[in-house]
């Protein structure tokens, strides 16, 4: 038995609950017989992958749901073995090249060439081409993207590529121009409400709308998170009654604690304390950019109107630097010190000038 997230995932374009105009467009594209390369982008948990699988089903019929998962081994130029999980059906193949780290170019090249050079075997297939889905396309290295761009043109007759990314900013322009861009926006609160009611109906219980809206508030437009949260809640208190506390992920509460620490006191000792907490978060593999963003959000909530913009501005500046650097903790702490200084200046402004 799967988790609800997977169990009640819509399988076809008709089943989708929101972004109806996008669904109709995808449907007409799939039936037009002239299917382009595509790039789906949008925030996490908005339903990109769901839409991709639905589109595939529209293209090839229910046969695409017969999946086979295996591990392929590629050799890096330095003869290191790279293991990549490949999900495939008779009509498509799905890879996450970022699993190979720096050697994603090898994976992209070998796999795509192999697929592109073989024709569709199944004569009864609806389409002449196969589809390659590339997940996390925005973490592809520059080399891999460059390798992709030639392939996309050369093997157009045999293959279509569907890229899935969070944002287009890290994709090179040639790739973007070769794809049809599909933005999947985060669902609105009403959309999420309907989806969650649908899920609860399918499971077989009544979801009070206020509970649902509480979960939705917390999830920040991430439907996957909302449904996971719902399931956790249902497991914790099966009858969904009484005073329910929507539990946030631990790292989020931890980040909020850090933000409160920053606001409440600005001393070297406090800097030290915050550093400990950052270390703790980093060691649990929480991406540093996410940490910075979450803490900054919370800080902005709590500080005075006058310095909100500054806090955010510096968070952005330090995040950019963090991406270029390698010791993340330096940048996190630098931001903390900056914010503390801003806060102090704001409060005791007269004393320093």
């Amino acid at each position: 038995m799967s988790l609800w997230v997977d169990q009640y995932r819509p399988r076809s374009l008709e089943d989708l609950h929101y972004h109806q105009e996008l669904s109709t467009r995808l449907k007409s594209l799939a039936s037009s017989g002239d299917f382009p390369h595509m790039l789906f982008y949008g925030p996490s948990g908005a339903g990109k992958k769901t839409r991709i699988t639905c589109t595939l089903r529209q293209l090839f019929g229910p046969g695409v749901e017969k999946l086979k998962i295996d591990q392929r081994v590629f050799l890096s130029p330095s003869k290191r073995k790279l293991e990549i999980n490949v999900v495939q059906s008779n009509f498509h193949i799905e890879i996450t090249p970022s699993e190979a780290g720096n050697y994603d170019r090898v994976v992209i090249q070998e796999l795509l060439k192999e697929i592109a050079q073989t024709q569709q075997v199944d004569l009864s297939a609806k389409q002449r081409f196969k589809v390659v889905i590339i997940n996390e396309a925005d973490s592809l290295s520059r080399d891999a993207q460059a390798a992709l761009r030639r392939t996309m043109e050369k093997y157009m007759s045999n293959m279509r590529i569907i890229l899935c990314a969070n944002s287009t900013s890290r994709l090179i322009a040639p790739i973007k121009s070769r794809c049809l861009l599909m933005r999947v926006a985060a669902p609105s609160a009403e959309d999420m409400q309907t989806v969650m009611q649908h899920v609860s109906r399918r499971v077989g219980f009544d979801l009070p709308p206020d509970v649902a809206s509480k979960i939705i508030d917390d999830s920040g437009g991430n439907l996957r998170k909302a449904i996971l949260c719902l399931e956790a809640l249902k497991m914790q208190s099966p009858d969904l009654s009484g005073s329910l506390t929507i539990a946030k992920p631990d790292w989020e509460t931890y980040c909020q604690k850090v933000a409160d620490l920053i606001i409440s006191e600005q001393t070297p000792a406090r800097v030290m304390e915050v550093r400990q907490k950052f270390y703790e978060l980093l060691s649990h593999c929480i991406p540093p950019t996410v940490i910075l963003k979450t803490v900054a959000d919370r800080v902005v909530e709590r500080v005075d109107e006058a310095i909100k913009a500054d806090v955010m501005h510096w968070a952005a500046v330090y995040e950019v630097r963090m991406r270029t650097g390698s010791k993340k903790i330096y940048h996190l702490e630098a931001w903390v010190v900056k914010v503390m200084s801003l806060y102090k200046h704001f409060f005791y402004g007269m004393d320093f000038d």
Partner: protein
Amino acid sequence: MSVDFESEFPLLGDVISRSLNRTTIPSTSISSGPPSTTIRATNFDGKTLYLRRKPATSARRKLAVATQGRHVGNLLEMPFHKMMEQLSEDKARELSRELDQPDHALAATVGSDSSLWVDRYRPRTFTDLMGNDRVAREALEWLKQWDKCVFGKTSQGKKRKRDGEEENYDVNDPHQRPKQRILLLSGPPGLAGYEVMEINARPIVDDRIRPTLETGYTVKSTKPVLIIIDEIDGATGAGDNSNTFVHKLVQLTQDKPQKKNRNQSGDKRTILRPIICICNDINASSLTKLRPHAAQLRFQKPADIHTVKRLREICAIEGLKAETRALSTLVAVAKGDLRGCLNTLQFIRSRNEEVTESVVRKSTKGMKEADNSVISALNSLFTPMSKKRAKELGLNDEAEARYVERLSHEIDACGKDSAVAVGCFSHYVTLRRHDANFSRYEKANEWLMTFDSFSSAMYNDGEFALSPYLAYTLVPFYPLFQERGAPRVERSQEDWDNLQLTKTNEEIYKSLNRCLQAASTRHGGDYRHLANWPILQLELAPFINRIISPQLRPINGQHVRPDERVLMNRLVDIMSNLELRFIQERLEDGQLTYRLDPSSDLALSRYAVRHLVAQEVDARVTSRHTDIVEKGTTGKHASFFRGAKGKSSSGDLADEDVLRPPPGKRPRTDAFVADDIADRPPTDFFGRLILASTDNKKSKSNARASNRSSTTNASTSPPKFNIAYKYKEGNSAAVRKPVKVSSFL
């Protein structure tokens, strides 16, 4: 002359190079023909030019070869090989002249200057040693322990074996050698080597041979040998490779005497001679294997007074006038490095100067830095130079205030910029200096970030041209944070600890990821979207922790309310799908707990509840295993009886492979089940749970969920018992056929 030549030659070259693309006549005429007085050349207009040439001297010719040879190529007036000959002749003549000269010069000045003072004043006997009395005595003691082994038998000389007397002796008396057969001497340069050479020259040792250790174990000579290996920290021993030098050395010492007894004439011989190793850095990575096997002696820097006294004696012998003050300055600057002092003195002597303080200052400018650890670099970043040291270096206030070059040099010299940066990072917050508006902190962080972006540009993008700037980005910590009397910087483990912790957690997430992959294989790709990297940590991990820790009452499995049973079933389903297990463990205080594997967990549920869940999960897994076994046997039956080979059986085997949890898990779960079979909930013959209630629900969910748990389905609905199971249409290519239960009972 040369100016003349310079001004003339380019003209020629110019002209020729211009005409080269049209005609090659001039070049050939020049290179092949004999030297003539004019050179003919043609310019672009086809006009012929005649250039007069001046008679060339050998010096000029040489210059021509050196400067223009490449351009003119075959345009030389003299064949190339001749020129080379002449050059070599010149060189030979020059060399012979040089060889003659020093003899005269030396004979004329002081005959004794031909040797280095360092060698000349090397201590000859044990009593010449200076400082470190205790260490020296210990070394001697250690050496004396060998006496019985080395000399005891030689005098008597009975029962000689083929290999010589040492071997014989060793067989009889294995314990007469000191336990540790290698002596490892360590200390800063200029101290250790000096004294060890002295021990070496002791009269005990009749013969000084340093055999290469790779070739021989004991050198078969009639005279005993002491082996000294100098600079062993530079040896190749860091790797795990078994044929490194240090490894061989250790092997050499570890040959057991009793082994010797068994094969007397064996080709392996134990060592019977002392080995002394000398190194500067005892913590060098190449020595890690050697350290446990060696007796270690560490030399300390002798007191400055001793060194000064010694220097004064030497000066007296050499007839060098020296002020005591100057000598003590010298020792202080050199930080007790006697070799360095002696070299400097000899240098001063060679210029026939007196040893005064200013002379010493001048000649010790480039003296090497002795102690270059990360910690010392950090300390000089965070504390100003002590007055004493400043005086020793002869810096006035102004020079002392100029810190940038000094500090950047020091950081560079220690060679671990990133370690220094980490040290700065962990130390600056602990300082007590008042910083009201955090401006210094901001600046410090600014510099740290600059350092980080430089170094990552260096190491990630290969921009190694940036490396000279790295040290300078850390220097600003000095003006920002230096303080007299600040606490000494200590090595901070925080960053390292954090790194280790991160690695552990990454492993945990990786194994969770593997579980998800396995689950998605089993469920037609259902879990695969959750296994991606940031989603796994940010969304799945926290919620799965909650999902698998519902509030259950800790009671016996049979007395549960129906709704709790539903909850429990779902929990067990999820856990067995994701291959999450509760593993029983005993804590340090003897208490039993259940640990979630593979995940770091928050211990949300109680022991009893976990116990219950663990049992159920194990039961579920076991039932799945029995399924596999049944299928496997039917597959064989089918192929055996009906000759339907190949397809069905191979399909079944493939299924079995997919379903089996990773190796290593299975024995453990089985053993666990066998352990407390008494208090397990009742099961039927196949080890499946007998579930009283919620049949409809369960069968419905089962029909949705898994293709292969259909046996459970059948067992929970007894009326349909005549068909044991059938293959459902899944993604496998298995053949569907009904099978009677009686066929495998």
